């Protein structure tokens, strides 16, 4: 049971990464490789500030801003200088690796003694007079792990709802139009370049938040934590799309959250069943690849591909 709770908590944290990837990949049709860097900078900024005694909320907010800035830079490189989006993302995220190292001062940091959002939530649970352990489905669970789970569930649900609402506003609709048909967007006087910069900023802000929360949950920061974030985000998104579909924006976004949790539970089950944890990224990458190409095989078996069909 504790394994399930832990996996679900991490899934909820990584669902914010999924939301960011949803915005860049599904709304703008860009594979934004800034994700690896912005997840890392989220980890680095939050950890560095927390060990210096900055209040957790402020440290988390600073991490989000750092990620948003990184996304904005990628967007600016892409729109203003017409740098290929993949390359712009790689450039930003490579540069961020060094920045993260500077910020952290070393390759890893321990948050064991620093108060974090997670320890604050646990203290709050204690003050509410909850017992330290209780029995759930026949196993003993720590109240502290339940507190972390609830905190992350609230955050994931809150941001998912906010993003859904945002995409239904005038500005959000303009962003979706800019991603869907830039020519049409320009014709109705939408600043397409500005929308890409803003969109990637918001996306990477969410991704950095995900990084800032994971470091607080795990109690340590490591410079390599951002590696492969984009692939994890894509995997979350794809599981969600398979489970809940893409019929409406709200459903799609809810899918990104559910998908992240389900994917984490699957990962936990696989590790429990004997999968080497070192193989995790390999398995995640293979999973995304499979989701991308299996529909094509299916279509080939059924008959010739219609013109204009594309995977994903």
């Amino acid at each position, binding site marked *: 049971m504790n394994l399930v709770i832990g996996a679900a908590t991490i899934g909820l944290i990584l669902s914010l990464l999924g939301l960011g990837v949803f915005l860049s990949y599904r709304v703008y049709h860009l594979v934004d490789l800034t994700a690896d860097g912005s997840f890392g900078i989220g980890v680095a900024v939050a950890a560095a500030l927390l060990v210096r005694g900055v209040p957790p909320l402020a440290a988390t907010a600073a991490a989000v801003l750092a990620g948003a800035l990184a996304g904005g830079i990628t967007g600016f490189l892409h729109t203003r200088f017409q740098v290929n989006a993949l390359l712009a993302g790689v450039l930003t995220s490579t540069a961020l690796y060094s920045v993260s190292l500077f910020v952290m001062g070393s390759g890893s940091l321990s948050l064991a003694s620093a108060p974090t959002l997670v320890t604050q939530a646990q203290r709050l649970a204690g003050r509410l007079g909850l017992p330290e352990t209780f029995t759930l489905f026949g196993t003993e669970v720590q109240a502290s792990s339940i507190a972390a789970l609830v905190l992350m569930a609230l955050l994931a649900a809150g941001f998912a709802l906010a993003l859904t609402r*945002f995409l239904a506003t005038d500005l959000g*609709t303009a962003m979706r139009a800019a991603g869907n048909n830039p020519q049409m967007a320009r014709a109705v006087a939408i600043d397409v370049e500005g929308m890409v910069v803003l969109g990637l900023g918001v996306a990477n802000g969410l991704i950095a938040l995900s990084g800032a929360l994971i470091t607080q949950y795990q109690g340590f920061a490591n410079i390599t934590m951002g590696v492969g974030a984009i692939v994890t985000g894509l995997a979350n998104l794809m599981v969600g799309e398979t489970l809940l579909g893409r019929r409406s924006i709200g459903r799609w976004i809810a899918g990104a959250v559910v998908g992240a949790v389900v994917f984490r539970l699957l990962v936990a089950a696989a590790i429990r069943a004997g999968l080497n944890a070192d193989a995790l990224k390999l398995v995640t990458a293979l999973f995304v690849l499979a989701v991308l190409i299996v529909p094509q095989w299916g279509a080939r078996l059924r008959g010739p591909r219609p013109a204009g069909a594309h995977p994903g």
Partner: protein
Amino acid sequence: MFHRDTPSEVRALDGVDLAVERGTFTVVVGTNGSGKSSLLNAIAGSLGLTGGRVFLDGNDVTHWSEQRRARRLSRVFQNPFTGTASDLSVAENLVLAGGRGGPRGLRRALGRERRRDVREQVARLGLGLEDRLDTPIGLLSGGQRQALTLLMATMVKPSLLLLDEHTAALDPRSAEQVIRLTQAAVARGALTTLMVTHSLGQAVALGDRILVMHRGRVVHDLGDVRRRRLTEGDLLQLFDRLRWADRLDTAAAEMLRRAYI
């Protein structure tokens, strides 16, 4: 200018000096590659100029971006897919067009009031689309999309309406319908319109003034179309003459080549 400083340099527009009077309907016709669409794109800002200026409402807009010009002018493209965002619903597309020229903030895009407003406007088209407001616009036919694009281009009154062969990709029935809607919208808003077309029939039926373009130049400027009772046949004759002139050019060149080289 395309392929500049290469042997295949083409002057898409060459010394075009055109003033469009407010409230008039100007039609541009011309041979293929004559620069009709380039003229429209130069005005809209999607084609950069190597020389010359563009004025709109008395403002020099030569260095304005396409999206900035779009606050004052609107366009309907030849391809019905170009003017609408296919993944967005009919209502969302219209609301985006309704916000042309204004700031876009955090207000709900489809509040009850806006929805009612959009529904009324769509109902006025008479195509029965008011019951499909939440359908992704990409699921509609080319004719329906073009009718909606026209509505989007005219719901906020533009200083100039640009129509770029906007019925060329439609079947004859839909084309006729879109032309009817065009006439109605232009009349209702007393819009200043510049239309490019290959249909000489449309040109004489809709235009107050007809420009004939050839090789990047305006070779005929026919005002007072109605009073002069210009017909499709008259225009056809002009075209034939242009084609003869072209042939004469090549024939003469051939003769000179034989004689002197």
